[in-house]
């Protein structure tokens, strides 16, 4: 729980600092507002200029707090939007990969291996993870490259990258 807080991203920290400032400033605003109100109703004579200056200062302070709150709201909304965007993008990538594997008629074992290949796991680690021999992995990757019509891992990856760049860029640029 605490470690999650410490791992907060830069934008999350920014948002937290902004929120903390708003809390402190609103307390200050309330304090000075109380001061002005007390001055207004006190029997002691106060200089009008002094009172006006104080009132203006309080209004400015409270306006600042309101402005910061609106700013914080916008920051949070942007943050939210970014997160949904990422979520959608992630789902989209998975779908594209799935579609291709389907199209190439990969066997379930080959699908697993192909996914690990895409993730950049080396053959030896794939063999350990799947509990098979290194030779098996090599044979499976050869079958995958063959079915996909590429001559190696780099080309396999670039195939998906190309797909993403093709329709992803034009949309995000808009």
């Amino acid at each position, binding site marked *: 729980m605490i470690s999650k807080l410490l791992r907060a991203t830069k934008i999350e920290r920014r948002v937290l600092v902004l929120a903390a400032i*708003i809390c402190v400033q609103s307390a200050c605003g309330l304090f000075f507002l*109380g001061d002005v109100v007390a001055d207004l109703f006190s029997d002691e004579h106060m200089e009008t200029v002094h009172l006006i200056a104080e009132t203006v200062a309080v209004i400015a302070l409270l306006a600042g707090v*309101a402005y910061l*709150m609106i700013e914080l*709201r916008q920051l949070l909304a942007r943050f939210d939007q970014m997160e949904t965007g990422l*979520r959608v993008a992630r789902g989209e990538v998975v779908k594209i990969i799935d579609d291709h594997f389907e199209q190439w008629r990969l066997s379930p074992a080959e699908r697993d291996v192909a996914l690990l290949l895409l993730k950049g796991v080396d053959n030896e680690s794939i063999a350990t993870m799947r509990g098979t021999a290194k030779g098996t992995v090599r044979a499976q990757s050869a079958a995958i490259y063959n079915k996909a019509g590429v001559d190696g891992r780099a080309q396999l990856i670039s195939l998906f990258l190309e797909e993403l760049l093709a329709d992803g860029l034009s949309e995000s640029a808009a």
Partner: protein
Amino acid sequence: MAKQDTSDCGRSGARTLAVWDPLVRLTHWSVALIVLINSFSDGEGDLHEWVGYIALGLVLLRLVWGVLGSRAARFSAFPPNPMRAAQHLLTKGDKHIHLSHNPAGALMVYNLWLTLLFISATGYMMGTMRFFGVAWVEEAHMLAYNWLLLSVILHVGGVVLDTWRTGVALVPAMVTGRKRIPEGMEAE
């Protein structure tokens, strides 16, 4: 070797969603701390008075944030509705997940805010010339404080109950701001 992290997947499985913004969390825990401090501080002392003012400021700030704030923080996300609250509590094993407060929790939140405002108001009155030493004001202040304690106990009980029913850890959610929705659960 690439490490697989599925905690943030947007598909059907378990997922974490950002719910409580920092302002909600800060005001929540500050007010909780203040209630604790002022439960033990000397009621006649300066500390009690100043800490009380800060609590009033925080509650007012939170109320403004209920209009201006982020989605889950806005009043519109948890309108007070006793009928729905009763329904929520009485439906056996109601496993609806609410991203903001659940209907019963919403009522509790409004209750806590009103009680805190009332305590602040009576506390302030006790310090004014007009109401200084007036018995009914002091009694109202104490009575409201007892009501607040009862409410806090019910609030904590409600959090435990909801965590148990839905499997969403609510206390960590109020610390990190994120609710972890278990696999196969729909959140509204």
